[in-house]
């Protein structure tokens, strides 16, 4: 199912573009994972934190 031929790839991906995206993606992978972990930890903390007074007021109204 995975195309081996490229006749259907009717746009030119550009060899420089293919190479640079591998480099960019690889370099950004570690900061991306770190940011994602921090984001998840922050979300988990927020869920645990009791609702603030303003939130309680909003929910009550």
């Amino acid at each position: 199912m995975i195309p081996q031929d490229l006749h259907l790839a009717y746009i030119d991906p550009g060899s420089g573009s293919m190479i640079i995206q591998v480099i960019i993606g690889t370099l950004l992978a570690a900061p991306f994972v770190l940011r994602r972990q921090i984001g998840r930890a922050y979300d988990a903390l927020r869920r645990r934190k009791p609702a603030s007074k303003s939130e309680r007021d909003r929910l009550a109204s």
Partner: protein
Amino acid sequence: MTAEPGDGSFRDPSGFIYRREDLILRQVNRSFAERFDDLRASGLLTTLQRQGLLIDHEEVDPSLAAAPALAHAVLQPEPLAFVSYPYEWAFGLLKDAALVTLQAQSEASAAGFALRDASAYNVQLHRGRPILIDSLSFERARPDAPWRAYRQFCEHFVAPLALMAHRDVRCGLLLRDFIDGIPVDLAAALLPGRTKLDVGLASHIHAHAQAQRRSRHSSGSSGASRRMPAIAQTALLDSLRRTVEKLTWRPAVTAWAGYAEATSYSAAAARSKDEGVRRLLEAAGDGVVWDLGANTGRFSSIAASLGRTVVAWDGDAGATELHYQAVRLGAQPAVIPLLADLTNPSPGLGWANEERRSLVERANAGVVMALALVHHLVIGRNIRLAMVAELLARMGQQLIVEFVPDADPMAQQLLLSRDDVKPSLTIDGFRQVFEARFEILDDVPIEDSGRRLLRMRRR
């Protein structure tokens, strides 16, 4: 029944768009049969459609194919009110189209597929939201393959958005010359040096341009066989999304964006004009409304409130942006705000000048509105009144036009800077010129002003 080729899909070997009678159809070619069956069975198309990322379609009788010998299937996509091009879009629309494309690629990647192309022409504004319109853009991808459409995404979206945000919003018009997207080396040369300090633009434009330059001088592999771990692919998409989201442009108070608040109408005149436009639109009956010189959309919204689809054109990027943002907030999903200079509208572009059709060729209006516009063309841009009438007649069957006398303060303001133009426009002269191309059906005064609204039918 004859089949006419549709808009610019002829370069795609997997299938093409065509018109048969009143239907717009997409043929899936036999050469793409296995891949299409795989795509259909994967459920990806349905997932994307449910999320509002891809236009809905239904499969119809294959006998409706344009080229039956080559056909595997025929799709009937949900019809679009109007097909517009990226060089006619507000900054915000191009940005939202970029984000929709990235989201679709993320979904496709999660399902083991990839967008084969990331063309801005594959996105259209539909019911107030940008949506992908090419159901054949997806194919099964090797899990560790780089994204083949990365370069195209940068050239169709990142480069123009960066230039519009960091250099000048009018750089969006470069897309008219560069129909395959703004080359990243050109964008790198035109962008201010400070953009090299932005991680996203430094990566996707500046380093990208450098990599392209290097690869041209080396005889290495095409790069297609390179491997890219899944996490690197996700990080790349995340970086592209963050780069696009960071690009912003806010209109300054330009001549037109501030025009709505700075007209010469008194409150009574403004109310009378609103009522007049509404009454004449009701009398004009059904059909798509083209609002020429729409500014931020005051009269487009009156047409939309009557259930009409509106294609709203303005020559000012700021006004079009404000109008688009209003549509985006859900106020008027039936309005399509677009950018055009009526004295130099979009030409036919691409192969044989037919790949992207000219603005006039795409005119499909039941009703054309030209409100507070004609005096700008005649006095400000030296277009003869008869030529204005001729163009308006080519655009739609009915016309609602505003007559502005020379004595009007706004006309006087235009005449002030034009020693070479003598005031000569009277309502009788105006009617006489338009009667050569139209039958005048209504002529109503706008209270508390010398202006009038006229409704006409093309002869």
